């Protein structure tokens, strides 16, 4: 019987099983490292440094840094097999479709990391909270709610998805030192955007009022006015319809486009 050459649930399940057989040590150690670092450093700060966390909002930046940095680092290793000839042959020759292989790695690096990270954060927080209460008698005040202002905070998670997609795409291009190379590419891309924006802004407004210096690429320009003693800037934001277009792209376009490119890049891999 002719198998489905794009997607088959059983085959994907087998591929997931195979993937975990190959990588369970790495994932296990990675999980322990993240959990250990989060918990260990905080507990040391409390017990040795006698420096308690008084409010939750002081811990939140670490949560976001871990989510973004850890997620990017983890995703950048998604196609690490392709960096080695032997593992690459094993990866590409296994009878599962490229789509199944891609979806597996996409789920593990994106959703898998996200779910694990939150479980780990929650457990870590509970340990820190009880250690602090036992050692110093100080409770952590819950002054930060992750789910209040959902309309604004959701963009943090859209940002996570875009970053994950960018690093997944990077992993299909760079099989060795993928994280560093992808970071460099993101910087190069941002610099190119800034440069193009500078040229356009200068062509439109000229060198006067330092428009080019005071702009966020393709989002706003600021005009330097006044002087010689007092200066002020006036900001000009892009129109509402363009802002909405940007938001739509952030929500629904950028990450899927990057994932699609990454999928076709995977299909084109040669060893």
């Amino acid at each position, binding site marked *: 019987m*002719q*198998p*489905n*050459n794009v997607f*088959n649930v059983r*085959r994907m399940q*087998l591929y997931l*099983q*195979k993937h975990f*057989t*190959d990588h369970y*040590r790495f994932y296990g150690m990675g999980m322990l490292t993240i959990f250990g670092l989060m918990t260990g450093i905080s507990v040391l700060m409390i017990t040795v440094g006698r420096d308690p966390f008084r409010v939750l909002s002081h811990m939140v930046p670490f949560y976001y840094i871990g989510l973004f940095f850890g997620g990017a680092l983890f995703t950048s290793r998604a196609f690490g097999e392709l960096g*080695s*000839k*032997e*593992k690459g*042959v*094993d990866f*590409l*020759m*296994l*009878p*599962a*479709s*490229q789509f199944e292989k891609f979806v597996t790695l996409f789920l593990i690096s994106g959703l898998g990391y996200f779910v694990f990270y939150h479980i780990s954060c929650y457990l870590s927080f509970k340990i820190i909270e009880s250690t602090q209460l036992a050692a110093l008698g100080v409770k952590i005040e819950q002054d930060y709610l992750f789910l209040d202002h959902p309309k604004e905070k959701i963009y943090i998670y859209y940002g996570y998805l875009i970053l994950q997609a960018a690093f997944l795409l990077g992993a299909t291009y760079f099989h060795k030192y993928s994280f560093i190379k992808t970071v460099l590419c993101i910087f190069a891309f941002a610099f190119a955007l800034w440069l193009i924006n500078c040229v356009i802004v200068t062509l439109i407004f000229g060198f006067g009022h330092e428009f080019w210096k005071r702009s966020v690429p393709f989002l706003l320009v600021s005009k330097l006015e006044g002087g010689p003693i007092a200066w002020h800037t006036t900001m000009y934001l892009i129109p509402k319809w363009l802002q909405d277009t940007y938001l739509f792209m952030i929500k629904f376009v950028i990450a899927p486009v990057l994932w699609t490119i990454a999928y076709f890049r995977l*299909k*084109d891999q*040669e*060893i």
Partner: protein
Amino acid sequence: MINIQSLTFSYRKNKPLFENLQLRLEAGHIYGLLGKNGAGKSTLLKQIAGLLFPDSGTCEVLGYPSAKRQPAFLREIFLVPEEFYLPKVSVKRYVNTYAPFYPNFDEAAFYNYLKEFEIPGDQQLTEMSYGQKKKVLISFALATNTKALIMDEPTNGLDIPSKSQFRKVIAAAVSDDKCIVISTHQVRDLDNLIDSIVIIDGHKIIFREDVQTVTDKLSFKTVSRIEETTGVLFADSNVRGHTIITRNAGHEQSKIDMELLFNAVLTNHKPIQEIFN
């Protein structure tokens, strides 16, 4: 089974490795793919396996374009690469993980092949030497019962007894619906095993004949005085005298000397090719 048409491929621009290469390999045969270092044996196998894509032309296995690497194609082809990867698990776990991808996998046959190679089936792959791991991979490859089995230098890293075990298990595994392609530069390892010879040189296939035809048309002998023999197509001197290839005019049956034939085809290609045309 394996059909390569007008295949052109190069790693670097203006330096083609294959130019308009044509090759058709049928089921029921064990092909020996021979060539000098750098001739492109491994590259050709990678083209067949879909690990490299042609610059132009086509490469199909069982009607599937290799480059698409569809599951229907992948479950009917197994590549034993020269350098390979095996996960750090036990043999049993390896089989449980990889075998379900191959619908015709024969577990009993796998353990029989392991037994033939004297590999304990309950050992961890990490505890094995390179040669032992290779034997596990070869056993697994044979047990998958894929229609196309391609092996790149499979005897590299095998000790002398293992090489003869290898020949034995391969010979036992061949069937009418299987096509086995073995690439090697150690031609003596394939003695009495392959039934067709493919020699690759200078960007193309320069020789492709079955062993029976070769022995029908050429005679392989050892003589003490080469001057007394006429019609020598190729000769190689050694301590026992001279091993020579002549046209088999008297329809004698001689044992093919693969190494001699390979050297003859490379150095004296034209007169040999004329005999087969």
